[in-house]
């Protein structure tokens, strides 16, 4: 923790950001004051669209071309807003550096790691090629990248997500910055990797003494990581204070709402007497990369290996795992959406290996909802058309009027105004779109819905509403869910049985309470701790470094 009287290095006063859009001017930031003292960690927290990232983009001269900024942003007394580009380029990347959300796209895919780390070193430090290379190597060691000499020669796509973010951090530290602005740096990463990256940032801050301004939507990170917090909503700071104050004595309703937005509740297990709807055994999926006519043999990836599950009526099985664990592939294999081996029985009928035609009669009973509420709804169809499309196939005898009735009813069930059925998907928010996707599944009156990360693209508060909705429709229709997610908190709230997957295999499974409260395997333990007790993970990491 830093003292109150320490030097104020970054000072934002009355900053406003406006974007010219075809629908008129949109004010993303509406007059915000904010400051960062030397060496402290400040979090800016808010949901999507709160303007939290745009403040920093504006201050660093990185706004999109349709954006305009007014107000003041000073770094050690120098006004950054309106500063000539050449002068600004001496500050950014040297004394004030940034890391971004998507380590995948934030590095240039066409150049080696060495080249990308060396560029700012040479531009700002004026180092020669060999000296810059030595510094780059030093930096990679500092951020604990294994085999740093070899990694210098690698391209970004050859690194994992966590390693790429380490490279970004190495770039950020290259010129001994005063302030590191981290814009959702761990949002795209798995929870265990997130804990590692946050631990690394804490370690480096202690070692090097720079201040960190952390932009995030994740309150768990804020609590574990920050000294001070700004809470933002709709372009304004609604509350600010020390982390302890904000978490223990939130003053504003919005802050309270955010704090309470963690998914809650749990689902009691269903009885063994309930009929088994979906029974799967030894399901395996292998992706093979075929060689060409003259290009020799291919190779195989075992995405799912020998997984079984038994879904009873009214049950929700949560499948959790990090990216690449095979959880989505398993979901698709169960619904025969991709070729697989093993045995899958739906209500007494073995459906394993059914082709599209053979599966068609079962499709209405076995529905799927996808993660991306933007990509999975056709942009050229009205919401009514999207919802009733399945009815055309599965209940062709319905008249247009009856279909319309069903669409309106389905919209009502998912909490949307039936009067909006003639609008197009882009007119809806992310949460509303996910409701539409759920309505599309529900309208067919299925028995099983596979939900693949349905809440992952949504803000916590919206997530909570979708969880409530899923609970309600499950109860009303006695639906069974297979709920696939990397988000442990959501699975904990929704599922009564949990399966933990890693590298295509089941690591652990059992009733949700048992798996979450008393995990047996080390992997599950790490996962749970990284998701629910980040603070403890970070303090243990710090203790390990000290000792």
């Amino acid at each position, binding site marked *: 923790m830093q003292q109150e009287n320490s030097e104020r290095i970054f000072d934002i006063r009355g900053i406003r950001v406006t974007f010219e859009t075809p629908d008129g001017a949109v004010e993303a930031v509406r007059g915000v004051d904010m400051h960062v003292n030397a060496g402290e960690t400040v979090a800016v927290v808010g949901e999507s669209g709160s303007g939290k990232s745009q403040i920093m983009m504006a201050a660093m001269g990185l706004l999109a071309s349709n954006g305009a900024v007014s107000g003041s942003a000073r770094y050690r007394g120098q006004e950054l807003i309106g500063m000539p580009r050449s002068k600004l380029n001496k500050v950014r990347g040297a004394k004030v550096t940034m890391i971004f959300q998507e380590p995948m796209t934030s590095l240039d895919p066409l150049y080696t790691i060495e080249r990308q780390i060396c560029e700012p070193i040479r531009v700002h430090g004026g180092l020669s090629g060999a000296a810059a290379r030595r510094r780059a190597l030093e930096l990679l060691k500092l951020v604990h990248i294994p085999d740093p000499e070899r990694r210098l020669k690698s391209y970004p796509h050859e690194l994992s997500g966590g390693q790429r973010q380490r490279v970004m951090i190495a770039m950020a530290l290259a010129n001994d910055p005063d302030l590191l602005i981290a814009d959702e740096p761990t949002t795209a990463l798995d929870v265990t990797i997130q804990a590692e990256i946050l631990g690394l940032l804490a370690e480096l801050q202690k070692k090097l003494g720079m201040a960190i301004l952390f932009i995030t939507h994740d309150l768990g990170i804020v609590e574990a990581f920050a000294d001070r917090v700004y809470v933002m909503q709709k372009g304004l700071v609604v509350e600010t204070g020390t982390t302890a104050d904000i978490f223990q004595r939130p003053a504003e309703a919005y802050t309270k709402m955010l704090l309470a937005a963690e998914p809650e509740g749990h689902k009691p297990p269903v009885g063994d007497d309930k009929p088994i709807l979906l029974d799967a055994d030894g399901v395996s999926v292998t992706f093979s990369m075929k060689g060409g006519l003259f*290009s020799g043999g291919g190779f195989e990836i075992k995405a799912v290996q020998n997984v079984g599950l038994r879904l009873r009526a009214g049950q929700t099985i949560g499948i959790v795992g990090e990216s690449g664990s095979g959880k989505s592939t398993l979901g698709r294999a169960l619904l025969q959406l991709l070729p697989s081996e093993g045995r899958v029985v739906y209500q007494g009928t073995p459906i394993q290996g059914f082709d599209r035609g053979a599966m068609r009669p079962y499709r209405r009973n076995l529905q799927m909802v996808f993660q991306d509420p933007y990509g999975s709804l056709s942009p050229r169809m009205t919401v009514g058309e999207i919802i009733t499309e399945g009815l055309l196939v599965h209940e062709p005898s319905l008249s247009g009027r009856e279909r319309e009735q069903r669409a309106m009813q389905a919209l009502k069930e998912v909490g949307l105004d039936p009067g909006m059925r003639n609008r197009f998907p882009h007119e809806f928010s992310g949460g509303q779109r996910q409701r539409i996707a759920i309505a599309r599944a529900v309208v067919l009156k299925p028995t099983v819905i596979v939900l693949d990360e349905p809440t992952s693209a949504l803000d916590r508060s919206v997530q909570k509403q979708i969880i409530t909705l899923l609970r309600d429709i499950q109860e009303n229709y006695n639906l069974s869910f297979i709920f696939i997610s990397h988000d442990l908190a959501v699975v904990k709230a929704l599922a009564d049985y949990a399966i933990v997957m890693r590298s295509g295999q089941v690591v652990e499974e059992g009733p949700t309470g048992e798996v979450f409260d008393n995990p047996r395997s080390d992997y599950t333990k790490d996962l749970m701790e990284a998701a629910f007790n980040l603070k403890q993970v970070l303090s243990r990491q710090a203790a390990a470094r000290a000792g």
Partner: protein
Amino acid sequence: MLGYAVRRLLGAIPTLFLIITFSFFLMRVAPGGPFDRERTLEAKVLENLNRVFHLDKPVWEQYLYYLGNLARGDLGPSFIYRDFSVQQLLGNGLPVSIQLGGTALLIALLIGSLLGTIAALRQNSWIDYSVIATATFGITVPNFVVAPLLSLIFGVWLSLLPAGGWNSPESMVLPVITLALPQIAIIARLIRGSTIEALRSDHVRTARAYGLPTRMVVVVHALRAACLPVISYLGPAAAALLTGSVVVETIFGLPGIGRYFVQGALNRDYTLVMGTVIIIAVFVVIFNLIVDLLYAALDPRVRYD
């Protein structure tokens, strides 16, 4: 990489074989023959001609005979240009077409990329709008309009350049301009689009956030990514340009090979048509391979092994 190139070239053999077979029989299906004239030839003469050119044999025998010759590198005699073999015709014309097409391609690349980049960097300014307007104009006005106009203005009225013919370096200017104009337009539009996209990308934002000079951001980080789509366009475009243009060669009276394609087809000059088909097919195969290799050289995510 070398192994990949060799495999690709081997893979092209069946492709070429199919193209040759298909074209061969397609030509024979077309009604008429190489010796049909307004005034029919005497039966005896026709018979003799057919015998000399093996047209009296069944089609499959002719096909095998043609393949046999082709395997020895012999494209056969032209049926219409009686004193020339197809090799001689193409051998004389191809250098002209390559010279014209290659120059036009080079100019189009340079000017097109330059215009496209400037337009992207000054997006929605008057410079951008005028580049786009010019480019749209360049794409929509067909070369059979541009060629005679240029010839008329610079050749006849101003007498600055030869209006046609192939006798001096100056005679290249107008045909090259005609060939290059639409390519400039297409390349400028492609580069503009991909540069705008690249400038908005996250890694360009990173480069800016790290205080790199604008020139470095644009040239090193945006343009390299932006030229990838242009390279995929260049494969087929280069093959088309280098094998000559009927319109340009006819209007400017140039001895390239583009015109043989149309004349050969109209005259049922079977061997000449086959010869041009093979040349174009080989060019397409080669340029697509070059494009793929260039891609791998520019984008480390693309690997062939």
